[in-house]
């Protein structure tokens, strides 16, 4: 245990949850303030982790390793790399924001709610930091319970249905994953004579192609449910719609990312050949998800359902970039996970604000809010355009990289996915317009009061990040890219290069600079004295 920083990040929410539970008070303000302060601890610790993180290293770092169940080869092993770094930060950032934005949202069993939210954070952080497959699986299951309770207890009218659906879907995937996990570990033990759940050593498990295919399928289905990819997505609209705001934010911000993260951490490097051969299928499902999610979002009458389906579409982009199998696509995809967490999280918070005031999420109940709640409207405007990937906001950088990468991997998939850019504008602007513009059709809305300082400040960090990532994404990209390279090297080394784009080999940055003759600082002239336009001359005889 050289560092211990990751342990600190993972376990402080758990300790916080216990502290909260043991606090001998039901004074709501004391509880809220305590939870808020407790949620700041992992945030500060994860910022410290960011400081310790070496951007040049692509493999796992800040690692910790201790024996847990030595007889089974199970270790308590943590580590972080470019794939998990920003997701950990999003996780720790979102909880304080959730607590501040929803200060008065919870009107029953507040203590238990705060307890479960901290517990959920613990599970999510554990799953993101774990580098032992067994430990990962433990945390993967651990996050399920608090989420299910948050939906099932504090949710909307159909909360029970939504919670059960969520649990069943996830469990079905988990069960598949567990069987495959055990199988892989046993095969590895057979080959090496030693039981081990260490992820990196499992990457090299000697599996026949058929075994790879079966195990990949099991892992992939578990992760595809989480992403979610069409047609395994129908738990999401219900879970999102019924969950309280805080639950929706965590769901969109982190839980969905676990699926894509699982592909990067487990499914791709453990089963490289099978993962490569799934290329056409995953590409197809990703593109279908982008278009289908956008289309189903379009006529939704319920704001939260609309945002939920938009998540299906956005996560389709994430999977598309991931399966582009090139540095640009995967790096963009990891960035887009962060972006989606921020933008969609902010959307749910904003929907929560009006829901808290009017107790309805029906789009048709609103209209003409611009004149009544201008601050709310302006914030919704920013977040809406971040969600439709306007250049200058975070969404654009991610989507641009994903589509650029996808174009290299599969021009047709890239082209068709680009249509999603249009459809995204279609449903988001339609919702924005129906809620914000037009005449005030419902007299009740005239009494709405605009956001107060607390509600605005809760969103300020997200808005700042939306523009930061949009205008200066390099600090983020720089820390993701080395890990992307490590993954691609691993896939290449495994001999599974059928779909690997060769952009990195063909054009290394140095070679590119050489080819361009000059650095962009003093870029060459466009108007080199009239190129003899022989090619064009023919057009104008």
């Amino acid at each position, binding site marked *: 245990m050289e560092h211990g920083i990751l342990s600190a990040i993972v376990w402080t929410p758990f300790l916080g949850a216990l502290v909260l539970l043991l606090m001998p008070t039901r004074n709501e303000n004391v509880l809220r303030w305590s939870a808020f302060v407790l949620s700041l601890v992992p945030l500060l610790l994860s910022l410290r982790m960011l400081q310790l993180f070496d951007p040049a290293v692509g493999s796992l770092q800040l690692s910790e390793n201790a024996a847990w169940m030595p007889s089974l080869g199970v270790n308590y092993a943590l580590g972080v790399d470019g794939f998990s770094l920003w997701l950990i930060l999003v996780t720790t950032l979102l909880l304080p924001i959730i607590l501040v934005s929803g200060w008065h949202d919870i009107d029953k069993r507040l203590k238990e709610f705060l307890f479960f939210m901290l517990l959920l954070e613990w599970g999510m952080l554990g799953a993101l930091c774990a580098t032992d497959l067994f430990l990962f699986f433990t945390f993967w299951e651990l996050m399920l319970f608090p989420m299910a309770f948050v939906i099932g207890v504090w949710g909307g009218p159909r909360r029970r249905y939504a919670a059960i659906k969520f649990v069943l879907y996830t469990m079905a995937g988990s069960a598949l994953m567990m069987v495959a996990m055990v199988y892989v570990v046993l095969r590895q033990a057979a080959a090496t004579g030693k039981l081990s759940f260490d992820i990196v050593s499992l990457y090299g498990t000697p599996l026949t192609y058929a075994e790879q295919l079966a195990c990949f399928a099991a892992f992939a289905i578990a992760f595809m449910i989480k992403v979610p990819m069409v047609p395994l997505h129908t738990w999401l609209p219900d879970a999102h719609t019924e969950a309280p705001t805080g639950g929706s934010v965590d769901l969109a911000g982190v839980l969905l990312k676990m699926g894509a993260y699982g592909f990067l951490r487990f499914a791709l490097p453990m089963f490289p050949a099978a993962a490569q051969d799934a290329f056409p299928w995953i590409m197809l499902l990703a593109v279908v998800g982008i278009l289908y999610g956008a289309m189903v979002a379009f006529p939704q009458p319920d704001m939260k359902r609309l945002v939920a389906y938009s998540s299906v579409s956005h996560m389709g982009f994430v999977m598309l970039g991931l399966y582009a199998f090139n540095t640009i696509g995967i790096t963009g995809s990891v960035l887009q996970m962060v972006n989606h967490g921020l933008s969609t999280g902010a959307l749910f918070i904003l929907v929560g604000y009006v829901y808290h005031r009017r107790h309805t999420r029906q789009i048709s109940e609103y209209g003409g809010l611009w004149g009544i709640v201008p601050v709310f409207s302006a914030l919704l405007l920013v977040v809406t355009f971040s969600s439709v990937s306007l250049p200058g906001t975070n969404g654009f950088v991610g989507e641009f990289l994903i589509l650029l990468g996808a174009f290299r991997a599969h021009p047709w998939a890239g082209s068709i996915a680009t249509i999603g850019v249009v459809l995204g504008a279609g449903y988001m602007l339609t919702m924005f317009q129906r809620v914000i513009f037009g005449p005030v059709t419902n007299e009740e809305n005239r009494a709405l009061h605009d956001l107060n300082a607390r509600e605005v400040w809760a969103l300020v960090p997200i808005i700042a990040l939306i523009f930061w990532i949009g205008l200066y994404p390099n600090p983020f990209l720089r820390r993701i890219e080395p890990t992307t390279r490590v993954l691609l090297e691993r896939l290449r080394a495994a001999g599974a290069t059928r779909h690997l784009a060769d952009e990195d080999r063909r054009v290394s940055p140095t070679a590119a600079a050489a080819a361009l003759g000059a650095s962009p600082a003093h870029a060459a002239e466009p108007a080199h*004295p009239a190129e003899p336009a022989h090619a064009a001359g023919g057009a104008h005889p």
Partner: protein
Amino acid sequence: MTDQPTTLLRLIPLLPLAGAAICTFAATRNLRSVAKIVGPGSVLAAFLVVLAAVARFWQLPVGSALIDRVWNWIDVSALQVDLAFRLDALTSVMLLVITGVGFLIHLYSLGYMHDDPDLPRFFAYLNLFTASMLVLVLAASLPVLFIGWEGVGLCSYLLIGFWWAETANADAGRKAFVANRVGDAAFLAGMFMLFWGMAAAGAPSLAFADVNRMAPQLAARSPWLVTGACLLLLTGATGKSAQIPLYVWLPDAMAGPTPVSALIHAATMVTAGVYMIARLSHLFVQSPGAMEVVATIGAVTAFFAATIALVQRDLKKILAYSTISQIGYMILGVGVGAFSAGVFHLMTHAFFKALLFLAAGSVMHALHGELDVFKMGGLGKHLPITSKTFLVGTLAIAGVPPLAAFFSKDMVLEAAFMHGHPVLWFLGLAAAGLTAFYMFRAYFLAFAGESRMDPHVEAHVHESPSNMTIPLVVLAVLSIVGGWVGLPHGFLWGDRFGEYLAPVFAHVGGHGGEHAEAGGATPLLLMLLTVSVAAGAIFAAWKMYGAPSTLPDEMEARFPKAFALLRGKYWVDEIYDALVLRPYAATSRFFWKVVDSAVIDGVVNGVGTVLSGAGESGRRLQTGNVQHYAFAMLLGAVLTAGAWWLWR
């Protein structure tokens, strides 16, 4: 010829951006006077910086440029995009037009929006638009251009729906944004194609300088790639520049305040497509096929939109279709390789079309929003400045010598003819006649003859205040003299404008020197022909609308179908609605109600019912959700084991 580094250029978009931020703040505190100073002031400041920058640029050797690298924007693997601005001859023209005309329009807005309670918000949007447009023309690479490209789209969306309480305005704004997005998606795809093409050629870059330099090699490696990328970029241009097939948003965009129509939907934003093609001239000339498509779209749009403008009653709609038509000329110009002619028309159009829109706004101001030219008449005596400046704009757009569009339009048409596009030239010529006709029709109906106004309205008609009329006069002067920088070759000082821009553009089939070669009588004959067509059209307009006449009614009685077709705008909106929008909405509903809710969820709930039935029996042993958990886990394991066993 190296580019000269500077940090001056970033100030140009930054000033109006800061203005937008201050005006936004002013909007929240309702500080109208702050917005009134900062709104136009920030654009004036940007104009002064532009002057300083252009002065510095003029000191550089010919062919050099100023470059301002702000920071490295995106850097992943082979993709390196700098947030960099670059000022060359083409950019200098655009900058002067945007900040110069832009400032006049800001000034005019002070008067026009005087009574609007949301004036600070208006200036915030207008400043943000100016900043985006400046980014667009200063960008040194395609992705940075795209920031401005979509930024102006956002501002256009916000300004069309500025009076948001009207659903129709909000609809128009959304229509504009989504139609533009269709183009933008194609634009993105074009960028992607270009990037991978450049990467394959060993130069992964989207900087204009690199793309233009590598264009011949790209075309040599893969002609279809260049053609494909150009056509996709062109599709982007048809969105932003309101050309067939994506022009449908522009007429609706007139829902915005009139200064917006002048600034965004006439003088600047809609010319972005023309600018982009001119900017990538070296790439486009490598694909004769793509150029052919560009020129054809331009010429057909010029003619098509002009026919619709013939029968419109709404003054702003007439001007909107006229804008579509005039941009068609610019696209035609760049499409036949006469890049400087296209940009020349872009500049003169910015003068006279901004003038026409602002004059129309002045009429609206006087008539309390009335826009139907058939409910005007005789306005000349009430609105002396407005009517005279409108007449100048009308003469200019009609191509009457020696006003601005006479030179620029003629240059485009001449290039079309001389570069071997007689059909496109003829379409352009016909459109020129139509233009002169519909503009004078509008002028005669609104300003000449007897009043057809509502007496109530007529009683209150008044000339606009000086902060509105001064911009009109300045623009009128520019509409007269603005074309004199580009005289026909050999006439007085000749085509100074074209010579100034020449180092930037690719040269097609000897264009640039072609005036000299062609020499002879052909250009003169073409010019005479164009002028006589315009003169004939003006005479016809006077016959039909300038003097009391039954001719229009007789015409309509004789050709009812043609009139209905034009009044219905060829029913393109209705066709798009039936072919695209309604099927899309229906499919969406089908996916939602049937595929998602009935089929997929049906299966899921079916499984769920079975499970919870089993769970109920399990409840005797355990309580809570745990049994579902355990059961699902078991089921998953059984299914996997079964699958495994079957597979073996």
